[in-house]
């Protein structure tokens, strides 16, 4: 099973777009994909795929209810099929108060002499729901900042893909992530693996070439480098679909560089699948 979260300390580097595009690539290669949206911001995966769903309705069963052990139904009933082979667990406004909810649960558990780990709840939910039986790939799009949402995501998936802007700001954000993962390892004793670093919006300037060379020298896997693809990504957000579908259905003519970008995401997706030892399905889309 392949499980990961795209993470980045810096905002706006394409975390969500990366999650959505890779999800589509895995699905098109014949894998069953579950994407979990734990981003509290509005521009999240849930918006990206745009299912008919009200994230503000507190009465509807949602991921947070499952995380705090108060589900209203089956976990699998939370999933909405957004493209062929991709199920989405949508985000919910209750996520904003997750920290408080988890603290309450922790206090309550301690009142009854039980120990409780605030950061193992997503892992528990996924284990109990036997996601392994239904899905080959689980991708969690989480908040970028350190906190219970990100920690729950990392404990559950244990692997990260780091979308990365090849700028000084991007460099800093990798160092920031390094600290964050250190903190996580110290506080809950798990280690997190970096499956790949993904430079996005790469321009072939001298500065950026240097940063890319540094990155490759640092020992992280950098399977592909994505150039500037602003209009493709903007188009996806506008049409609320993956870039694959966007190019197929919403572009009147094929643009070579866009096809090239999709091929690169495919290459990255195959790399991730190989890392996790996923078998290549017999039927491919």
């Amino acid at each position: 099973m392949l499980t990961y979260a795209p993470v980045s300390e810096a905002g706006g580097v394409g975390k969500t777009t990366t999650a959505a595009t890779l999800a589509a690539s895995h699905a098109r290669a014949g894998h069953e994909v579950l994407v979990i949206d734990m981003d509290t911001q509005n521009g999240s995966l849930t918006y990206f795929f745009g299912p008919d769903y009200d994230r503000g309705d507190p009465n509807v069963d949602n991921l947070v209810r499952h995380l705090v052990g108060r589900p209203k139904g089956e976990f699998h009933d939370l999933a909405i099929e957004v493209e062929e082979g991709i199920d989405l667990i949508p985000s919910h406004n209750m996520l904003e108060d997750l920290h408080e909810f988890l603290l309450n649960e922790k206090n309550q558990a301690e009142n009854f002499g039980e120990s409780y780990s605030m950061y193992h709840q997503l892992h528990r939910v996924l284990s109990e729901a036997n996601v392994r039986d239904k899905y080959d790939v689980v991708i969690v799009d989480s908040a970028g900042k350190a906190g219970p949402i990100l920690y729950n995501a990392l404990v559950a998936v244990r692997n990260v893909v780091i979308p990365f802007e090849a700028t000084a700001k991007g460099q800093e954000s990798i160092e920031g992530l390094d600290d964050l993962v250190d903190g996580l390892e110290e506080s809950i004793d798990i280690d997190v693996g970096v499956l790949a670093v993904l430079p996005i919006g790469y321009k072939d300037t001298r500065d950026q070439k240097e940063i890319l060379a540094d990155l490759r020298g640092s020992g992280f896997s950098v399977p592909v480098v994505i150039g500037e693809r602003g209009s493709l990504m903007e188009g996806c957000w506008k049409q609320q679909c993956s870039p694959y579908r966007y190019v197929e259905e919403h572009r009147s003519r094929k643009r070579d560089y866009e096809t090239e970008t999709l091929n690169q995401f495919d290459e990255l997706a195959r790399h991730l699948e190989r890392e996790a030892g996923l078998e290549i399905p017999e039927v491919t889309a």
Partner: protein
Amino acid sequence: MGLKSGSRDAGLDDSESDVDQSTEKERNTPQTESEEDADPSSTEIKDEHESTPSSTSSETESQRPTMDSIPYKLRRDKVNEGREQVPYFLREGVLEAEDELQDTLEELLGEKVYKSDYREASMVVAQRNPELIAEVLREWGYDLDEI
């Protein structure tokens, strides 16, 4: 330390994962402790002994007059020393009246009274005067035949 290249197994492929086991283990240990002091009548006595370092090991050999003779308030290092936190469900009106009780007690005793202290003391009073408790419970509808 920090970010390392490579793939990790999230333990979701196997229902008996490491994470699950460790949480289960943690969950089981404290329970045995709480079973020992399940007898409510022993709480008061036990609290007094727990807070003295020399007597924590055993509950049974606990009758030590020298330690008991020092009042709880004076020998503890912090307010809730030796106390176990238990959930307590109170209706709003009762909760609000607690403040009033606190004021009254502080007036009577001429010093600050901690909530933890008067709450536990209330329980002690109750344990010493079960007939008073029965009276309130009757007000709430217990033992209706008697009224």
